[in-house]
């Protein structure tokens, strides 16, 4: 077949910066409105006064879950494995959001005035400090990692499409998101995330349609892919499952079930909305990767080369296809808007999560009687610190594999002990802590030596066996009614 001649769209760096700023101004306007009208104290800031409704809950969760990297990874996995790649990327992704429901429902009922799962762990195990520290560390690293990965992914895309220096993109993005999130906390985060869900879904639909038309239609794409091998349109290729699918599925579950950015939404939602919000968020999330994955098929059809065109990074196939096939500029901007929307919403969700962790799991335990205005100050400060650390990691070019591995280790090891602690009365603090520590100590060397899948299995098995054994050996049975005694922050005084 005649090789395709790609021509890069001639877009200027200043246009990339303007795009970053335009989206930021729109979200800032919304955050300012929300701040003035709905955020009157720390309780509103951290947990939106527990007044989030169904619509905003669903849209907010979708947007928080749609990472910038996920937008590109759906295309990337399709490009590498065909529809099997898309299948293994997409199906566990939506399920991971829905899977939180039984735990969310349980904790919302038994601990209606909660803020973080670090707080739950502390209350569940009668103030056990080590258990809380382990959980808080996992939550913090998870949120920080989300910020770093989204900053990195966005910097990559904007620099590829517009030629802007990656560091400049990272700084502008971090400042913009920090500004509007620090203004309004969870209310601002969910409101802006609701808007960005619109900015992700609608443009994705017409951009992908335009791409199909531009390259010769769906028939051309489909037939070209079939000509390269019918297995590319099969969902049963085992190499997709083994190559990334199974470990990704597990990683996704830890990201939601042990992710404070989701738990803050659980406790921020009105009581009756929790289950159905998470169900519909998972269900309505699915179309996003299903639609954007088509760009991966287009990449296959056009013979996009991994080395020559994508610098060895399959995640670049979506941005490459959109910016190199002669689409009108406004459509390229629309695609970039999709990625930026995904980036901003995930970062603001993570910053809000860090704010709640700081307030509830760090400051309050150290200074229980801290005045409201000082608590509010430290809450906002934590966002600034987290955004600064993430930006510095991205700017330095440091390989953040260590952060990735640390987060992965803690969250995978904590997953089953946490699940047990939610439902099983006999889970003890010792079981929780030693199950987690032993799982990391034994499982991580296996991970490093034998690979992700054996390592993950080892961590899960050890973190399950130890709490179960210690629980059965112990005589304690926790009374979950104790959790109802946890109270809200004092919402009487205003801080703004």
């Amino acid at each position, binding site marked *: 077949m005649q090789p395709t001649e790609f*021509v890069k769209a001639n877009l200027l760096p200043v246009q990339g910066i303007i795009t970053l700023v335009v989206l930021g101004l729109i979200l800032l306007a919304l955050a300012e409105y929300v701040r003035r009208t709905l955020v009157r104290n720390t309780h509103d800031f951290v947990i939106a006064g527990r007044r989030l409704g169904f619509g905003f809950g669903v849209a907010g969760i*979708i947007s928080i879950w749609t990472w910038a990297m996920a937008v590109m990874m759906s295309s990337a996995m399709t490009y590498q494995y065909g529809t099997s790649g898309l299948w293994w990327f997409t199906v566990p992704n939506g399920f991971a959001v829905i899977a939180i429901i039984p735990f969310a429902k349980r904790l919302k009922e038994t601990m209606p005035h909660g803020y973080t799962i670090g707080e739950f762990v502390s209350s569940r195990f009668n103030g056990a400090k080590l258990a809380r520290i382990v959980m808080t560390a996992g939550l913090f690293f998870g949120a920080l990692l989300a910020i770093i990965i989204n900053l990195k992914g966005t910097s990559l895309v904007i620099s590829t499409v517009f030629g802007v220096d990656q560091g400049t993109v990272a700084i502008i993005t971090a400042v913009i998101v920090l500004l509007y999130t620090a203004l309004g906390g969870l209310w601002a985060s969910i409101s802006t995330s609701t808007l960005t869900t619109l900015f992700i879904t609608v443009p994705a639909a017409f951009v992908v349609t335009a791409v199909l038309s531009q390259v010769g239609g769906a028939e051309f794409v489909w037939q070209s892919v079939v000509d390269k091998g019918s297995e590319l349109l099969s969902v049963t290729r085992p190499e997709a499952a083994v190559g990334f699918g199974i470990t990704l599925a597990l990683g996704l579950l830890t990201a939601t079930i042990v992710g404070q950015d989701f738990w803050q939404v659980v406790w921020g939602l009105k009581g009756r909305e929790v289950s159905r919000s998470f169900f519909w968020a998972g269900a309505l999330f699915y179309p996003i990767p299903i639609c954007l994955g088509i760009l991966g098929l287009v990449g296959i059809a056009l013979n996009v080369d991994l080395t020559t065109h994508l610098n060895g990074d399959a995640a670049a196939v979506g941005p490459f296809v959109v910016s190199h096939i002669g689409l009108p500029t406004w459509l390229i901007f629309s695609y970039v808007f999709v990625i930026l929307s995904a980036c901003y919403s995930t970062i603001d969700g993570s910053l809000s999560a860090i704010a709640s962790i700081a307030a509830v799991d760090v400051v309050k335990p150290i200074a229980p009687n801290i005045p409201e205005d000082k608590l509010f100050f430290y809450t906002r400060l934590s966002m600034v610190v987290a955004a600064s650390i993430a930006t510095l990691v991205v700017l330095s070019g440091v390989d953040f594999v260590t952060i990735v591995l640390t987060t992965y280790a803690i969250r995978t090891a904590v997953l089953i002990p946490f699940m047990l602690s939610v439902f099983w009365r006999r889970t003890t603090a010792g079981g929780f802590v030693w199950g987690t520590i032993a799982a990391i100590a034994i499982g991580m060397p296996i991970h490093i030596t034998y690979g992700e899948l054996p390592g993950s299995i080892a961590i899960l098995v050890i973190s399950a066996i130890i709490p179960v054994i210690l629980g059965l050996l112990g005589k304690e049975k926790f009374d979950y009614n104790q959790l109802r005694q946890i109270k809200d922050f004092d919402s009487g005084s205003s801080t703004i």
Partner: protein
Amino acid sequence: MKFLLSDLFDNSLRFRSVKYLFLATITSLLAHQAKSYASPKLSNTAESGIFVSPETIVFILIGVVIFFFYIKGMAGVLSNAVRTYSTDTKTSQDAFTGGITNTLLAVVASAVVIWSYGLGAYWLYLGPILCLLSPIGIIYFMFLDVKAYKQSL
């Protein structure tokens, strides 16, 4: 005096939000001054217009309608949330049922849609179509929220 201050305050808030939106509009217009210099040199395509194809136009038109109702829904939810800020929200039970069945349906549906891409070319349009259904669903949910707010007043 109090009334005057609150009036000024509301105007200040509106002014600030409008100022940010105005800046966003101006910068968008500036960004679109530059045109793409890329010409479609793909051997299998014809010269395309600004909207590329009739199919794209259809999706854009539907998208515009969705956009309008979505923003309207958001405005309704936020304004009612403000109006009911001081209302005591009673904790009500999470009544969502059929969790396992619905979960299986959603997961299987997504798996089937991806599988359908292998059936034929036109199934590829299912992705963009479903992507427009997501915000439509959210518009409906926001409508339910507004209804619930009004009932509580």
